[in-house]
């Protein structure tokens, strides 16, 4: 049985963003698996809305940074300012000290800013003026980006991409969903009015549960087969890292939990595979151009 709070969350989210239940489900899977989420799509299809919605439903402190080319690391990490009365420097934390960080249009920022995010994403801490400060827990980065060929974008380096557990795309809504969007209320207003459906203690509890979802030897074999195949340079230029393999397992476990089952099936891995592997694989032949590499990987590795 699906956890009641999860089903409520999904229901509410589907009311706000119509026709994207798969993407919403994947986004929630990513959060349950403690991963950072990258949403990539054309402007105006609802990336920010989805990020905003998730923050609202989880009831967590939320801040949003609009990434631009002239953004400086201090703008997101914070700065030490001299306090005249106390006669010492005091730290003014930047917007990164939050639980859900919406990094909007992350690929518009310079590589310097992108790398400032690296430490925060991987180690849940930031170092400012030589002093390391812990970030609140939980800490999620939900980043949005435009496709790489947009003007004024810096493609995220592979090291940064690997730190996002999943990358999802939203795509244009179908006509019925678009009609609802046109005739319905303002989405921002709707989000503002929503109550928290998944409180922090439940979230922490569910996150702990994810790691306990049974994954048999046969399943781990399957994940390793996938990873091994991806690493053969004949197949792909960039294979899946051990971090990616772990991300694949955790997200498959979270997907299973979301589905209300207690053991991961190969099908669960296949459900999350396109989102987990898609942004990590690089084609090795020109003939692969334009094909979905994650699907290529999935169809090449047998399972029984």
């Amino acid at each position, binding site marked *: 049985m699906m956890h009641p709070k999860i089903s409520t969350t999904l229901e509410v989210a589907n009311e706000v963003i119509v026709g994207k239940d798969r993407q919403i489900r994947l986004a929630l899977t990513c959060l349950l698996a403690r991963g950072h989420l990258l949403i990539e799509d054309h402007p105006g299809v609802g990336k920010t809305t989805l990020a905003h919605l998730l923050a609202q439903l989880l009831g967590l402190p939320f801040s949003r940074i609009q990434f631009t080319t002239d953004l400086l690391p201090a703008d997101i990490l914070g700065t030490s300012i001299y306090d005249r009365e106390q006669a010492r420097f005091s730290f003014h934390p930047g917007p990164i000290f939050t639980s859900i960080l919406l990094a909007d249009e992350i690929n518009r920022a310079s590589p310097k800013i992108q790398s400032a995010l690296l430490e925060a994403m991987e180690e849940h801490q930031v170092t400012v003026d030589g002093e390391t400060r812990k970030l609140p827990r939980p800490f999620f980065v939900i980043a949005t980006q435009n496709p790489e060929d947009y003007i004024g974008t810096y493609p995220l380096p592979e090291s940064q991409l690997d730190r996002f557990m999943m990358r999802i795309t939203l795509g244009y809504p179908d006509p019925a969903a678009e009609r609802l969007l046109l005739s319905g209320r303002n989405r921002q207003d709707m989000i503002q009015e929503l109550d928290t459906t998944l409180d922090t203690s439940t979230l922490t509890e569910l996150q702990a549960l994810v790691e306990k979802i049974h994954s048999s030897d*046969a399943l781990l074999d399957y994940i390793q087969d996938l990873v091994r195949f991806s690493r053969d340079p004949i197949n792909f230029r960039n294979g899946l890292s051990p971090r990616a393999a772990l991300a694949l397992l955790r997200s498959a476990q979270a997907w299973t939990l979301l589905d209300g089952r207690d*053991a*991961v*099936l190969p*099908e669960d891995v*296949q459900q999350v595979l396109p989102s987990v592997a898609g942004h990590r694989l690089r084609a090795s032949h020109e003939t692969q151009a334009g094909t979905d590499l994650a699907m290529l990987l999935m169809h090449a590795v*047998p399972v029984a």
Partner: protein
Amino acid sequence: MAVSVTVIGWLLATLSVVLLPHTLHLPVWITAVWIAVALWRYLIARRRSGLPPALVRFALVLAAITAVVAQYGTVLGRDAGVSLLIVMLALKLLEVRQQRDIIITLFLAYFLILSQFLFEQSVLMLVYLALASWLVTSTWMLSQQSVVSSRRALRQSAILLLQSVPVMLVLFLLFPRIQGPLWKLPGDSEVSRTGISDHMSPGSISKLSQSNEVAFRVEFDQGTPDHATLYWRGPVLWDFDGRSWRDRYRGQAVEHWVETSGRPITYQVILEPHNRHWLFGLDYIIDPGINMSISGDGQLLAHTKITKRIRYELISRPVAHWPAQLPAAQLQRALKLPGYGNPRSRELAEQLHRDYPDPQHRIRQLLQHFGQDPFTYTLTPPLLGRNSVDDFMFNTRRGFCEHYASAFVFLMRASGIPARVVTGYQGGEYNQLGDYLIVRQSDAHAWTEVWLDQQGWVRIDPTAAIAPERIESGIEAALPDAAPVSGLLRTDIGFLRDLVLAWDGINNLWNLWVLSYGPDLQNKVLRQLGIINWTQMAMWMTVLCSLIVFLYLFFWWKSEREVIDDPVVKAYTRLCQRLAKLGIKRPLWEGPANYARRIQRQRPDLFAELGPILHDYQVLRYQTADSDSSSRQDLIRRMRQTRLKRTTAV
């Protein structure tokens, strides 16, 4: 796509390895051109500067052709052709821009590897060139984008080359052979070779004896005869001019060869080329094979010069039935001496004639004389004066086999006994590993034959009187250690000896089965296999090559599919195969849950029975931490026994 510095580096290194053996027989300037251009190209790659303009390249090509023509007067033929190929290959480097150019260059490299066989065909060269091919193939792989590391390229090309070996063997065995040597261009210059010559003067054989080269190899059908009986008869020399012995009539068959009797010895001789007509055999040969004849004095002669390695079979018998009297012409020839010179020897001969009227006694007395007097057997005798026989007999008394043979025949003739010098080889080294006898140039020998009425020509070896070890066990035993025998292999160390013999055995096999695999041998081998005409040959070639390719494809296909060793999975896979025949094929990547759902949707009639089985399989494999063997066995049984019949009407 541009070419990386690494690939250029590999290309240059590979080509240098390919060219290295060529540098030994081509003019130095070609090597210099190669080094210069290769360095130039490497610097261009390192500095990422541009390639020289077309005009410069054109001028260089003209200069290169001119230089080759200036060197050889032509661009055709082996040496000129290979030289041209090498300089052009060097200049091609200045055009290498894309992968396509690299592939062209590498194919030229394969061609150069082949051309090396026009110069040398030894086993060592084969190994070297095989390694060179490996490098070329690796470089080719490396220039492909998909293979990244050099280690991987080396491994993959090694696998590729090994996979080609069976096809190579089939083509080698079955591809129709043309007459003539495999690796030769028309007009190859005849190189001078070592071997027994057509005349014998003091020092000619002792010089030859310093060479360790193989003269021929012999395989006996029934065991190797005793070392002392192994007299390999070569040119028979009748005519003495005071210094050298010759055969003026060049072994012309003046009369027929003799009848023989006794236990026959059958053997095959594999003779190295020596650019002469004569062949070697044991006394007394019966019935020479085709393309050879035997003269009245027992010289075995080929109809053409031996310019390539040949193999011939002979049968010899120990006894010859000579006529009772020596024909007058031969008698005259066998007694003839120059009209002047060597007075002391003639005097000695006359004295012998007086003291020992019986020819047999005379011979024995002379041999004893050699044995008793301070005569020494040595490879480095002092030079002899004009009266060479006198000088040797009374002054130096140090000599090699030719000195003794020469002096003996001279004294025999001077004392009235018809005699002649026989040259050839004596003995040989038995190679246990290959069960054959190696006869080297160092086994070259000269002995004599004297005519005795009622007995015919009798072999007398004066060397045996001075140094019996030479005949019993070979030249190494006969020569004192102090004697300077440069070039002669003197290995007392056992394992080194074995190593040398093993190596010779390999070379022998290589010569026998690879280099001499011409139309005749091919015919023989294929006949043994039951292939008698070219249509069968073509058929077998096609069938075998297809079979090999098919096998590779099969193993490749098999390795692509994961090896299944879990019996439960095996049973499940088999069940899936049965279902595929019913039209519900499972793609290999489809998980069990999805497959079960699809069956339920497509064939609900089957699902009633299959559903629980598939569910249990899924549970066992993915939802159970530890499955006990009885439930596994039970599931396997159920998967096997399910009948896949409709159980409910739809």
